[in-house]
């Protein structure tokens, strides 16, 4: 493992800044950097020069990731997420819109953690997909939810899975939720300000009982009992807060999570599709149900 550090093209940041590498080298440095940071955690964020634009080709409307205020003819027409406040000072706060339109929630109760998500992805007002999997199965005891950039969430949670496995092998013991969420938070903190867009909840069960952490690409890592993320989170919070008790049964907790997501899909234009529900308990996680919102609508209407 130690040898990897020597291979890393990006040792101290000062060296990197002085180079003017070719496109190929830039690409290699970036991918190695990801590995290095995960393994060594001593590779500071390298400064971005002009080479940054070559590595990322993300389609129209995306301001160059990592660049400060760009020159006049550049991608200033980036899609602005109406949910987020405009950042005026030319900061490269992520301007990728897709998947911030979403609703995901997770809450702890006496029998574990309930995780519920919708499945819609939008680009502007166009619905790209109604069948997106927004819960990432990190390992049989840990789940991560996806909000923000799908690629960012998918990649970094997969890296987290790798790190958790390494921890297990080294320590002959399952990783705690606190440690797993800390690993993820530290990984993305190195990229703070470069435009990663990731808002995730790390949910699991360890020897301290149920664990739930909110981690995002700004570097926040917060422990809590109940979280909801995305444009529909305001509606989900309302339903959850009115129905939540510590002593819910598993059935009741699942219903609460499902109902909260359903109500969010009803009111929020950017949430919809199906409600995917998971339950994390002492033996790991279980996929409880996948319900199409159309069926839920009918079911709740009949119940009322």
């Amino acid at each position, binding site marked *: 493992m130690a040898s990897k550090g020597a291979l890393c093209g990006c040792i101290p940041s000062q060296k990197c800044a002085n180079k003017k590498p070719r496109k190929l080298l830039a690409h290699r440095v970036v991918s190695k950097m990801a590995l290095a940071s995960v393994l060594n955690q001593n590779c500071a964020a390298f400064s971005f020069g002009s080479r940054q634009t070559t590595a990322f080709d993300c389609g129209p409307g995306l301001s160059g990731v990592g660049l400060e205020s760009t020159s006049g003819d550049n991608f200033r027409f980036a899609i602005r997420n109406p949910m987020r406040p405009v950042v005026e000072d030319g900061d490269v706060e992520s301007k990728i819109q897709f998947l911030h339109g979403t609703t995901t929630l997770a809450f702890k109760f006496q029998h574990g953690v309930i995780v519920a998500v919708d499945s819609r992805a*939008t680009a502007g007002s166009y619905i790209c997909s109604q069948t997106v999997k927004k819960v990432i199965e990190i390992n049989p005891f840990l789940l991560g939810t996806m909000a923000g950039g799908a690629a960012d969430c998918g990649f970094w949670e997969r890296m987290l899975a790798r790190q958790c496995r390494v921890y297990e092998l080294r320590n002959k013991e399952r990783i705690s939720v606190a440690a797993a969420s800390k690993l993820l938070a530290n990984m993305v903190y190195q990229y703070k300000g470069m435009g990663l867009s990731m808002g995730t909840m790390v949910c699991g069960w360890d020897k301290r009982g149920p664990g739930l952490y909110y981690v995002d690409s700004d570097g926040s890592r917060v422990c809590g009992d109940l979280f909801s993320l995305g444009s529909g989170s305001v509606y989900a919070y309302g339903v959850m807060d009115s129905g939540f008790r510590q002593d819910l049964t598993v059935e009741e907790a699942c219903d609460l999570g499902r109902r909260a997501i359903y109500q969010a899909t009803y009111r929020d234009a950017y949430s919809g599709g199906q409600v995917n529900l998971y339950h994390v308990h002492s033996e790991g996680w279980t996929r409880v149900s996948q319900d199409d919102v159309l069926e839920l609508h009918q079911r709740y209407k009949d119940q009322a």
Partner: protein
Amino acid sequence: MSIMSYNGGAVMAMRGKNCVAIASDRRFGIQAQMVTTDFEKLFPMGERLFIGLAGLATDVQTVSQRLKFRLNLYELKEGRQIKPKTFMSMVSNLLYERRFGPYYIEPVIAGLDPKTFEPFICSLDLIGCPMVTEDFVVSGTCSEQMYGMCESLWEPDLEPEDLFETISQAMLNALDRDALSGMGVVVHVIEKDKITKRSLKARMD
């Protein structure tokens, strides 16, 4: 944020054999938040004449009311029902009056001639350019999706029942690909002797 997609919405009209159909979604929202699911976008302007308005909700209501006012005066002066083509010109005139501060709507007109019962559909842009077609017209935040659906599903000389099926499928599937439209569909099928109004069961997300 675009003004035309502030409230969202979609309308379309199709022409069949001696009949026309006009449909709209039912959502009224303010950006991402849905406010009601029973917002009227189709307005009767004659016994066999409907106008559908998509765009900014306040202008939808204002234009329909002002248009009704002008139409009432027309009917009193002329002593007869207005022809669809003339009505189209009336709408065009109303919109062009606001050329440099327009109403943010894109209307769609569907109806039968009061005397000959000839079917007629047309659409206009927000400053009143009329466009008469033989097949279908669409307007709203998901117009591209609606064009795709109509282009593939429509065929000439559909009977009223088939026309209803066609316009319903086109609307439902186009709306399912737009975040800002949906929450139900209303369809009017206008024939010589009757108008059938139906509400469709749609996805409510």
